[in-house]
């Protein structure tokens, strides 16, 4: 339900009084939302518009931002300093009242007096904890008192309501006094009497979050996330039409945006999914809020106070008719696993009971459990107790008497959340392959079918989450294309201004391209100005001392010449590439030979031509040492992790054949010394398609910290892998940010020259593959569209599951209303250029354009099926 910006002042209140049975809407505002005049204006507008909808409104407010912490701190002060602290809070509230154009606010002054008294008196007969609760409750009492006067003064007649008169905390026998007073719980039931009573008193109310009363009538606090919880209690008590949580972000996202900027806004969740997401990591909503609403079936809406026009997240009852989709990935860090192994547990009555008794005795709460006939593994959440006491040692000692114990940490639990998880397993092959590269300690899936959790080593999580998210989208498991479930990405909403990406060059070149395709198809067309522009963009900052073009991306002679003119060097991986460069660019252009598992003769040839050669193994020095005598060489190291959009394009880590592992570095240096080779450079290249601007700076810093120990190093080659966004709505790599990160690291290590070797980044967007439609065919629900280009021309979709945008260039502006599987003429099931593509209804002879095909397209083409691959044309 979009909220248009509302007028700054409220017109006269709705003339007609509301009927007694008018629906209720609860709106909740947090600490920053009540801390300034401007924000109060927003509250006024929103509350008034809810009233104008024909609903009674309960506004639930937090304390002014920072006030709860200040009150907590006040409680810990020595008596003589408490009064001064209360005085500072008095000043703050009076200053805000003045800013809001209110004179002396009597209702607020009453609470200020009472705070002063509580601060001066200190704990009374009720005890320290009761006093703390009493003191801390003042934050909300003050803000709500101020709000009631302000809203009423602005024409929205508002009643101040003491939340403590509306609900009481549940008296749970196992809770200690601290928990009863400072993190109390309420079990709200629909209370028609309260609703009728309030309806008789007015139409708009303002009340406090975070506080309640207990059975003895004492003030108690609801603990962390308490204000959201209060709103949900009111929602349940009044069986509201909805509860709205107004906060500083538009809702829940499909992943933590700090880890995954591409995370999508979740527009619709059911209670159970939301509960699962909130429990497994998301911070925007406290998980406790949801169960009162679920029972009363009251929908909850999360909205961004600053951006009310955004849809937000709506949480309600399960929607039966929607396509199954994973909704979110979340992660929790600091997990400790306890693995218990015993042959004795098989069919042994009471084994688990005995084992869990130890956990209980040591006060440890178990979260995840996985079990087999001879092993039970459980997870423990991070607590101060776990980290700072000997509890794990004591537990292990006890358990060791009945089984073999292993304590595995630090781990992270990565959870996929979505209703009907088991029905989506077949879409998770790429995700499971990803986990196949990691140490997975535990997998759990509960019978409610809402989650799938993998427990892995904690240090992989930061890199893992963005990749998983992308894979889930690509695999169609997270249906980001379904607008009823997913909104925009966090990056698009809050990231750096998603400046309207310039239209791709081929839009303007359409008539020419259609003509070229009419002459012959399939054919690759390369746009030289785009290649030049990318080269210039990388050179512009001056941060990179030497740029090498990775020739393997596209060795077309015209592109090589153009890049040489732009001042680039050339990075070659074979004698063939060296020859192609020699034939097309001036001898003065620097070149670099970086082969992998190449035969001896390749090295001999390159070295004989005086070309700087990069090694990435001990073997060449061990066995062909003479070749390297007196030569300058570079070394490609494996920094121990790989990055990239698909495991076949990841080039770091144990699973990849590239790079010298760091534990062999000393041996390499000794061998180089023995051979009389001089190691001048270090190189690392961790993969392709990387869109994280900080990546190359991190690689540089890592290489520099290695280089400092070596002494002879002059340059650091941070590789390439600069990502090219596949989807038109993805944000491109921020080259300025890349350079900023690199410049910062270079300042710390000024003694090294910085080299970089982009390939795909320079040429991918410059190239398109033009193909003509040959025929179409229906098969069940599938609608195939045949193109005269296949995997023998462009193998990336088949090889890497790469996504290339496909458009019907003949009908560029027609509505894309038909869902096609776009396939080629090769006799191979995998000859699919694009699955589930929406295109205008297409006819034989239409020209299809496959975008971003300038890199690893023609370069990887083959004559498979003895079909000639697409020919290449370069245009200016």
């Amino acid at each position, binding site marked *: 339900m979009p909220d248009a910006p509302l007028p700054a002042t409220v017109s006269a209140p709705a003339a007609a009084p509301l009927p007694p049975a008018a629906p209720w809407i609860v709106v909740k505002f947090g600490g920053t939302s009540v801390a300034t005049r401007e924000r109060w204006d927003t509250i006024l507008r929103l509350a008034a518009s809810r009233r104008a909808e024909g609903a009674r409104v309960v506004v639930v407010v937090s304390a002014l931002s920072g006030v709860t912490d200040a009150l907590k701190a006040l409680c810990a002060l020595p008596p003589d300093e408490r009064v001064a602290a209360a005085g500072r809070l008095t000043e703050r509230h009076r200053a805000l009242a003045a800013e809001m154009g209110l004179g002396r606010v009597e209702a607020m002054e009453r609470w200020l007096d009472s705070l002063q008294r509580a601060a001066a008196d200190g704990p009374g007969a009720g005890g320290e904890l009761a006093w703390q609760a009493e003191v801390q409750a003042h934050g909300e009492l003050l803000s709500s008192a101020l709000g009631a006067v302000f809203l009423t003064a602005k024409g929205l007649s508002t009643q101040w309501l003491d939340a403590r008169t509306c609900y009481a905390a549940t008296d749970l026998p196992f809770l200690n006094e601290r928990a009863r007073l400072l993190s109390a719980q309420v079990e709200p039931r629909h209370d028609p009497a309260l609703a009728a009573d309030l309806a008789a008193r007015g139409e708009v109310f303002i009340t406090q979050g975070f506080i309640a009363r207990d059975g003895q009538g004492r003030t108690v606090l609801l603990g962390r996330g308490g204000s959201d919880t209060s709103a949900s209690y009111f929602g349940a008590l009044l069986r509201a039409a909805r509860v709205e949580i107004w906060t500083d972000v538009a809702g829940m996202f499909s992943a933590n945006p700090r880890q995954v900027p591409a995370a999508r806004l979740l527009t619709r969740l059911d209670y159970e999914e939301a509960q699962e997401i909130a429990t497994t990591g998301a911070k925007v909503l406290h998980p406790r809020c949801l169960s009162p609403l679920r029972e009363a079936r009251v929908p909850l809406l999360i909205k961004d106070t600053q951006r009310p026009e955004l849809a937000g997240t709506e949480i309600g009852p399960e929607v039966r008719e929607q396509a199954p989709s994973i909704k979110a990935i979340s992660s929790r860090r600091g997990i400790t696993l306890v693995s218990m192994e015993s042959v004795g547990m098989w069919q042994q009555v009471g084994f688990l009971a005995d084992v869990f008794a130890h956990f209980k005795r040591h006060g440890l709460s178990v979260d995840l459990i996985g079990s087999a006939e001879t092993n039970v593994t459980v997870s423990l959440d*991070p607590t101060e107790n776990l980290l700072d006491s000997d509890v794990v*040692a004591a537990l*292990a000692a006890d358990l060791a008497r009945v089984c073999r114990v292993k304590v*595995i*940490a630090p781990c992270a639990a990565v959870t996929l959340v979505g209703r009907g998880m088991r029905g989506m397993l077949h879409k998770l092959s790429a995700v499971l392959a990803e986990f196949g590269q990691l140490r997975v300690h535990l997998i759990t899936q509960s019978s409610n079918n809402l989650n799938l959790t993998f427990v892995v080593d904690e240090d992989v999580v930061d890199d893992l989450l963005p990749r998983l998210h992308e894979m889930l989208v690509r695999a169609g498991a997270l249906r980001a294309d379904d607008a009823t479930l997913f909104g925009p990405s966090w990056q698009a909403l809050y990231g750096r201004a998603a400046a309207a990406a310039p239209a791709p060059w081929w839009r303007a070149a359409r008539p020419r391209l259609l003509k070229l395709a009419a002459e012959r198809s399939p054919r690759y067309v390369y746009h030289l100005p785009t290649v030049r522009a990318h080269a210039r963009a990388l050179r512009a900052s001056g941060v990179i001392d030497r740029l090498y073009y990775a020739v393997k991306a596209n060795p077309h002679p015209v592109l090589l010449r153009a890049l040489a003119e732009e001042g680039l060097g050339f990075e070659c991986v074979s004698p063939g590439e060296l020859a192609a460069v020699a034939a097309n660019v001036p001898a003065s252009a620097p070149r670099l030979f970086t082969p992998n598992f190449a035969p001896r003769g390749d090295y001999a040839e390159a070295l004989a031509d005086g070309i700087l050669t990069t090694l990435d193994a001990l073997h060449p020095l061990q066995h062909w040492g003479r070749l390297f005598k007196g030569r300058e060489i570079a070394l490609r190291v494996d920094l121990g992790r790989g990055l990239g959009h698909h495991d076949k394009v990841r080039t770091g880590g144990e699973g990849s054949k590239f790079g010298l592992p*760091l534990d062999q570095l000393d041996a390499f240096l000794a061998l180089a010394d023995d051979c009389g080779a*001089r190691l001048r450079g270090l190189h690392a290249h961790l993969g392709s398609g990387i869109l994280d601007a900080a990546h190359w700076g991190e690689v540089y810093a890592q290489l520099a910290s290695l280089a400092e120990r070596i002494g002879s190093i002059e340059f650091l080659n941070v590789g390439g892998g600069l990502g090219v966004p596949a989807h038109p709505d993805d944000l491109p790599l921020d080259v300025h940010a890349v350079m900023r990160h690199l410049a910062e690291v270079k300042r710390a290590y000024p003694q090294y020259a910085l080299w970089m070797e982009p390939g795909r980044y320079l040429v991918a967007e410059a190239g398109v593959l033009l193909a003509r439609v040959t025929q179409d065919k229906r098969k069940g629900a599938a609608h195939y569209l045949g193109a005269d280009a296949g995997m023998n021309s462009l193998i990336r979709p088949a090889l890497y599951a790469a996504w290339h945008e496909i458009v019907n260039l003949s009908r560029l502006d027609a509505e894309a209303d038909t869902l096609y599987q776009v396939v080629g003429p090769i006799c191979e099931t995998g000859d699919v250029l694009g699955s589930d593509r929406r295109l205008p209804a297409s006819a034989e002879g239409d020209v299809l354009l496959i975008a971003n095909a300038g890199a690893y397209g023609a370069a990887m083409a083959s004559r498979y099926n003895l079909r000639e691959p697409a020919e290449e044309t370069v245009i200016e």
Partner: protein
Amino acid sequence: MSAEKTMPALQDPRQAQAFRFVRCGYADGVAELAYAFDDGPELVERVVFPQAPALPAERRAAFDAALRLLHLVAGVSYYKAGVPARIVVDGWTPDAAAAALMDELYLHGLAEFAYRNRLDLRGRIRFPRGGTAGAPATTLHLPRRTLVPIGGGKDSLVAVEALKRIGEQATAAWVGRSALIEACASRTGLPMLNLGRELSPLLFELNRLGAWNGHIPVTAINSAILACAALLYGHDTIAFANERSASSATLEYEGQAVNHQWSKGLAFERMFHAYLKSHVAADLHYCSLLRPFSELAVTRAFARLPQYFDAFSSCNRNFRILGPRPADRWCGQCPKCHFVFLALAPFLPKPRLLAIFGRNLLDDDAQTAGFDALMEYRDHKPFECVGEAAEARAAMEALAQRPEWREDALVARYREEIRPQILTAQLALEPWLEPSGEHLLPARLSGALDAIRGA
């Protein structure tokens, strides 16, 4: 480079006949130390003393002596590029004591360098001597304050906290730019002194021309810089945090002991201590607070300082760009990471230790060789500032007894494969925790020893 004489051209230093200490001087907070190979261009190193106060007249002579000492000591970075047969000191002649100190420092401080480059420096290093010893250094009544060098690792933080415990007025000092050290130093709450050191840029050019490269005794250079700083800023004590194990050799090579951390050892400390007292200022005190302690005793003391757990790093990858993750401070693959992990393990709850490092190095098969080397099992001790092998074995033995550790891959390997092959008599942890042996602490600081022991 403009300040350097660019003529005549730089030559391959390995062809040089002589290494020359050309000149040294101090003005406006900057010391300039000039060196040359033969008649080649001057290699000028600069040491920057930030916001240096004016030097009181009564300390002038002492400062000059300290500056000459620094000139000689810091020359080692340049000398080693060529290791020529002759050493020449222009403008003055060292006395017997200075020459003897330098002969020892260059020979032992470059022992690892020599081993790695297969050079034999014995008989090659001979400083000129014969200058007359001046009058014995006098008492300057320096302010009773301690300069405590901070390294970003656990040792200096243990030293700092011990000094704070006994109420000593101390300044946290370090040489060179380092985000890690700065972060640790600011957490100590002490006044901070960050001294600058700029190597001659020509040293990088020499590397290109084929210079020898390798380990140098950097603690000696920092010691000499701090001696100058103590006189300039007014401190009577320089308290390093070098411990007992720094004195033991890494290996023997053709009859010569090679110790990676020789300039952190007691032999150097004694000589430098005595030289400062006799040649610089009778009341300038050079010592190491941790000298009587083993690495294990120090790690136990550090385990009681949780305020530094997310700031410190002993990793020798020397990350200059600090990030928030443990992997930004601990590479997890070098001997320092291995040793600190192992030595802290007996003294911290396992989840806490793993949170510091962000991973469990003892449950990672890839680290087998590294931990073997620490225990001198099938390998010599690494060329790093790490504890003695017997300490590593004692720590491992302690973990092998702990149910929460014993099943981890490398602990299990120790139990099953290594332990049956080694003498078990010396595997107890407790003896390592007691202080023993000589130290040069002034009486004022002796209480710090109890603070470190946890008394």
